[in-house]
């Protein structure tokens, strides 16, 4: 066929101890959106890194044909020259530089090394308009949210005359409306003839925009589905991904809710730098023993700030309010005290706040509870290994060894390591911040099962999630948060996506009327 823009043939890539890609074949047609799906660690990111030259020719076997030509990329600039641009799972923007500076980083509008800022700014304005981002080119990256940062990445790709755009889990940390905006942009680019490869664990998005879907499992191509010919359901994709159908996305569970185990009262928090800005405003929440409570809200609603300020005052200043466990006021003024009082907080930002990336899976799992594997101060190494293996098996963490450095794990497996760390600290109250971000459907199910188990053991679980279906699927009661306040509370029976959105919007109107 002549309309094949990219063909990857028999790609095999090994890392020490792991065959990440095993004879993979992959084809992308001109002007299509091609989704690449698969479980965590299936090799999706690796395949894209091979394609874009992050792993140079020679470090893998197999062949790449782009627009009919055999390609041997030495580095990313080689692939970019041909219009292949990759946007990585972890964004690669410099926080303290402006949008314009980031967009032209490495591709400066210059003559003899002198940057022509007028040209850069004008061009930036043009591409920002194209991606629908209404920000000044001089805004610093730190001052815009992740959703907009994604758009900046795409704008950056556009300035490189992109022909084939690769997006590795672009919507993982976006809320619904930002995700929609991004997907619409992809459709628009497609109309202009730009092909894209989309990696995502959000199968509803995949089935919405994809023209073809390639499924990877354990480093091998399982199949490629053509969405134009037949209607592809999410369940059909899942079957390909995990090798069996998943009848239920959310494991069933017997709910037995008892007394209140944990309560936060009159909680107020101010911004750590702008001390007059109140981030959390008189929040009251409680969790009962055996209950799973969700906190829904848009990005920036203050949910993470609430959780972190409760967890040992790890965020914010001038914190006031009380925290009770079993009706007794407890001291959570330092992280050590919070942990000692049975709290655990699983961060949403696993790379910079959750993991010691240069350390092994084992050391990361035991870090929050070193005393649990030590007699006095000496670490019992065999016991530590046994514990690490136990969690690896229990959470099905894919690693070549528990001594493997976590930096080399796939995103989803990193998440499981962070979760293991906190499970091992045997908390009574567990706060999970976006616990399934970037996690495949099968692993999500496993994590929900663990959450259910914790609740059944009589623990209190709080889940912060931007995915409303997830909140509705797992939680017994849901708080809705907006602009630092609790703006709604509803039991599972009464909750729906519409009602949650309504609660958010209604508060907005009230604020505007004021």
């Amino acid at each position, binding site marked *: 066929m002549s309309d094949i823009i990219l063909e990857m043939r028999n790609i095999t890539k090994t890392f*020490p*101890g*792991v*065959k990440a890609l*095993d004879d993979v074949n992959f084809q992308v047609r001109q002007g299509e959106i091609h989704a690449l799906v698969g479980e965590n*660690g299936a090799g999706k990111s690796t395949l894209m890194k091979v394609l874009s030259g992050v792993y140079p020719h020679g470090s893998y076997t197999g062949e790449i044909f782009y627009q009919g030509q055999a390609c041997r990329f030495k580095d990313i600039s080689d692939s970019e020259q041909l219009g292949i641009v990759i946007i990585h799972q972890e964004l690669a923007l410099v926080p303290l530089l402006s949008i314009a500076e980031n967009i032209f980083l490495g591709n400066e509008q210059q003559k003899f090394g002198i940057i022509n800022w007028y040209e850069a700014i004008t061009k930036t304005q043009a591409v920002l308009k194209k991606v629908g981002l209404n920000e000044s080119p001089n805004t610093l990256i730190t001052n815009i949210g992740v959703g907009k940062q994604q758009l900046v990445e795409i704008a950056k790709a556009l300035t490189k005359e992109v022909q084939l755009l690769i997006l590795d889990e672009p919507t993982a940390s976006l809320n619904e409306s930002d995700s929609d905006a991004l997907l619409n942009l992809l459709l628009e680019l497609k109309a202009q003839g730009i092909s894209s490869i989309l990696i995502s664990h959000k199968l509803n998005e995949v089935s919405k925009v994809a023209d073809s879907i390639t499924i990877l499992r*354990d*480093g*091998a191509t399982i199949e490629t589905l053509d969405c134009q010919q037949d209607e592809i359901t999410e369940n059909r994709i899942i079957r390909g991904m995990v090798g069996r159908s998943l009848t239920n996305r959310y494991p069933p569970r017997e709910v037995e809710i008892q007394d209140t185990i944990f309560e936060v009262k009159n909680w107020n928090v101010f911004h750590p730098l702008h001390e007059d800005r109140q981030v959390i405003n008189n929040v009251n929440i409680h969790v009962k023993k055996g209950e799973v409570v969700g906190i829904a809200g848009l990005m920036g609603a203050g949910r993470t700030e609430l959780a972190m300020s409760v*967890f*040992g005052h*790890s965020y914010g200043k001038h914190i006031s309010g009380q925290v009770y466990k079993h009706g007794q006021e407890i001291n959570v003024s330092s*992280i*050590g005290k*919070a*942990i000692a009082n049975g709290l655990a*907080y699983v*961060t949403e930002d696993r790379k*910079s*706040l*959750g*993991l*010691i*990336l*240069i*350390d092994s899976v084992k*050391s990361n799992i035991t*870090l*929050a509870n*070193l*005393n649990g594997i*030590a007699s006095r*101060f*000496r*670490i019992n*190494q*065999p016991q530590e*290994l*046994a514990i690490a*293996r136990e969690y*690896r098996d229990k959470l099905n963490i*894919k*690693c*070549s*060894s*528990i*001594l493997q450095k976590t930096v080399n794990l796939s995103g989803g497996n990193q998440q499981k390591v962070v979760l293991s*760390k906190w499970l091992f*600290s045997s908390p009574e109250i567990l706060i999970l911040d976006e616990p399934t971000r970037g996690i495949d459907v099968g692993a999500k199910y496993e994590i929900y099962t663990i959450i259910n188990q914790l609740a059944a053991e009589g623990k209190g679980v709080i889940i912060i999630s931007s995915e409303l279906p997830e909140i509705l699927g797992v939680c017994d009661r849901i708080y809705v948060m907006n602009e630092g306040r609790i703006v709604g509370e509803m039991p599972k029976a009464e909750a729906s996506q519409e009602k949650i959105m309504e609660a958010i919007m209604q508060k907005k109107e009230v604020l505007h009327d004021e």
Partner: protein
Amino acid sequence: MSRMTTTPDQVMDQESSLAGITKILRENVRQYGMLVALIAIMIFFQIMTDGILMKPINLTNLILQNSYIVIMAIGMLLVIVAGHIDLSVGSVVAFVGAAAAVMMVNYEMNFLVTVIISLALGALIGGAQGYWVAYLKIPSFIVTLAGMLVFRGLTLALLQGQSIGPFPTAFQRISTGFIPDIFGNESINLTTMLLAAIVSAALVFMDIQSRRKQQQYRVETSPLPIFILKNVVLVGAIMYLSYLMASFKGLPNVLIVLFVLIVAYTFVATQTTLGRRIFAIGGNEKAAKLSGVKTERLTFYTFVNLGVLAALAGLVFAARLNVATPKAGEALELDVIAACFIGGASMSGGVGTVIGAVIGAFVMGVMNNGMSILGIGIEWQQVIKGLVLLAAVFFDVYNKNKG
């Protein structure tokens, strides 16, 4: 599928493929590379100096000359692992030496009291700098750069530009004394040989124990031949060096101090929760903090610890020269820091070993000593040392990237 996800951490011994062997080799190169380099350097100078390097008297001298660098390298390693640096140790050496001299010579204080006060002074200095770094979040480079100037200045003030000495004999023995020979043999110090034999036996015993444990818990171990070779070389080296020293005056007191420090700090770094937490801080301070590690307090203590060790080094240094001078320990911090990096510590923290730092210190020490014997001028010594530092770190980084 051919992936090895479910057959993890199994002993890789059996892997007979070429890839397996090269992997084992590479890992062992990384682990023992610096040791091999040290031995190579020693053999090189042994040949070049017509055997002077390993003469008992020179060997003993070499250890005495480098003892204070090793002492500080151990403390510096923990600071570097925690993600910081300390540029002030050279000045602290001078300052503590000067303070000790003033106490003992000017005020005729008892030497033991002096030693205790000096170590406490070191703790105070380390704490003062650590406080700025850990709690006030001032970069350690700047805090200790200031400390370097401050304590050098205070040394000058304290000594009023003069040298103070000599010291009481009891104090000098810290550096110049040898452990007495209880058997009273004329030609060879039997106590030394006995101690060496005991230490060798203990090391081999512990290594076998830990290997057995590792196998019991299905941890990857090095192949048996390499394991045996390693132990034979280790015991051989200990016995040979001890024999050389026994035929001179026996084991220097400082060497015993060094040995105790190396063992104790290796234990702390690798076996204790404290050590693990310090490595975690250097690896990712924020994540460590959110895991309940008291990052500030531990950072503070790594500086206190280095302060004490720098004070000890200051005493050893002064005792060896038998005089406290304003210029004592100048540029010593560079040797100490170089030792840590040669020994595999990472500039960005979270990586390093005590034994690596010690080996690094001896790499520098042997080169200093060997080049001096050869009569190479101080200017070229510096050039060569600089290049060796660069080469060693390059080797390490290159190896890691490949792995």
